[in-house]
């Protein structure tokens, strides 16, 4: 319904990943809602959040999977984070993958615009990426400007239906080593996970396979603290109760930080901040600033298994004076 209602609306999202480790895809939702009713606003928010998260997850998967794995390692070291596994995109796009350089060591997303198309469920993502790759033992940079057209639907993951390469040219300057070290496979995997998890929380169950949800949904603990409402159960049951308490709405990722757990190789902690907007069970509009700390383990075959999720709701960023102490 919402698709139809807003199919002609122009949605533009600008995001800059640049060099910021915590940067995420973000932006304003529909510029001018057609209706002021709360239901309509919530519909818009859900549609926007679900589309953005699903597409961003696919985009993270695409770029992450282009980065070369560390093939020089021994079998014992195969669980290295830079060998982390990505699910494959459709074979239809194998040829498109060959136009990128070989031996890519890092990819930095410099900018992106998301536009909504006239066709229902179609979104266009215009991306500019700086690709660092090895050529004859020397690092080289290439700046690529390309457009992905996605088809989204309620029943399946978003599919790439067109890729258009606008420009591609060699950059003279070489990337600095910290940049090369940052934008690697694990960088994209953690973001792919975060966007997918948000889409899953908003009800896109078809995205679950991308984060191996069946392997941990009934094993990992999920603790939730929303004011005096507290839960500590397995993810599956806690998520259902938590969503029922919170109401209906959409999650948008605001920041991501992934770090290795000290002294525990292959164990990681993802610290994410989420903005949620929607309607509470009594029909009143509601907002939340949510912090989730997700612990996960990289299995030897490179799959990511969640061990625990801790969620607390923070004071939304409303006023400059709210942190003032007198």
């Amino acid at each position, binding site marked *: 319904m919402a698709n139809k209602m807003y199919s002609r609306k122009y949605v533009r999202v600008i995001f800059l990943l640049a060099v910021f480790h915590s940067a995420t895809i973000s932006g304003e939702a529909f510029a001018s809602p057609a209706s002021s009713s709360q239901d309509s606003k919530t519909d818009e928010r859900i549609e926007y959040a679900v589309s953005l998260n699903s597409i961003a997850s696919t985009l993270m998967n695409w770029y992450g999977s282009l980065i070369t794995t560390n093939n020089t390692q021994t079998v014992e070291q195969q669980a290295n984070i830079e060998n982390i596994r990505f699910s494959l995109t459709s074979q239809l796009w194998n040829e498109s993958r060959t136009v990128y350089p070989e031996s890519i060591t890092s990819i930095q997303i410099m900018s992106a615009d998301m536009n909504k198309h006239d066709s229902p469920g179609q979104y266009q993502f215009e991306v500019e990426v700086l690709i660092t790759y090895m050529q004859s033992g020397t690092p080289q940079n290439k700046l690529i400007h390309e457009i992905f057209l996605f088809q989204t639907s309620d029943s399946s993951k978003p599919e790439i239906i067109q890729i258009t390469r606008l420009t591609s040219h060699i950059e003279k300057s070489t990337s600095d080593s910290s940049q090369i070290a940052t934008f690697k496979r694990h960088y994209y995997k953690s973001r792919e996970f975060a966007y997918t998890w948000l889409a899953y929380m908003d009800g896109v169950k078809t995205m679950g396979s991308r984060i191996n949800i069946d392997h941990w949904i009934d094993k990992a603990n999920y603790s939730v603290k929303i*004011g005096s409402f507290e839960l500590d159960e397995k993810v599956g049951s806690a998520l259902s109760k938590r969503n029922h308490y919170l109401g209906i709405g959409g999650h948008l990722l605001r920041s991501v930080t992934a770090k290795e757990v000290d002294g525990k190789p292959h164990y990681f902690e993802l610290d994410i901040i989420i903005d949620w907007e929607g309607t509470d069970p009594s029909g009143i*509009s509601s907002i939340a600033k949510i912090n989730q700390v997700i612990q996960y383990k990289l299995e030897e075959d490179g799959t990511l298994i969640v061990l625990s999720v801790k969620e607390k709701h*923070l*004071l939304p960023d409303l*006023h400059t004076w*709210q942190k003032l*102490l007198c």
Partner: protein
Amino acid sequence: MLKKIFTLSLLCLLTAANITYANELPIFSGVGGNFTAINTDGNVIEFDSFKGKVVLLAFGYTNCADICPFTLGYLKMIYKILSPEEQQGVQVIFTTVNPEYDTPEHLKAFLKYFNKDFVGLTGTRKQVDNIVSLFQAKYQTISTSGSVETKNIRRINEKEVASGKTDKTTLYNHSVMIYLIDKQGKTRSIDYTGTPGDEFVTKIRQLISEKESS
């Protein structure tokens, strides 16, 4: 002190310059919730017992020489604007961050200087910390050498102490937020003394007029 007043004055001006009367007051998820405390009559109460009333809640302590008298004066002014019928549907609550000093009796005597209808809440340190945490407020000790003699503090009322004893208190910095809570106990707006009075009253009236759902 002067710096704080200047900062607050500047914030007041900035707020006044950009008056926006919100026509929608969203619930702030995770800000607030039910808790247990001791009221000014010395009774244990649950915050949920205020359901059905619109609550204005602020933190502070009786020996605060800075913002607390200012905040309570502001709340007194807001409360006075409301009609007697509207006042019936509103409860102003002042929660101390110094429960060791602010006994129910002292808190009651302190609040009488502002309005007899205002309710003070105190309790154990654990109870107070729980309330502060639920509302995501903050406080911190500012006394550099433990407690200070109250005779050196500009304050509203004196506490009765046994003769021969020196009255001492700890000093705090604390959040200045005033929480506007609906009849269901959900936080719907966060304001402070810089919020123009008519804007704040409009928000209160909006919540008074909301129907109570189960």
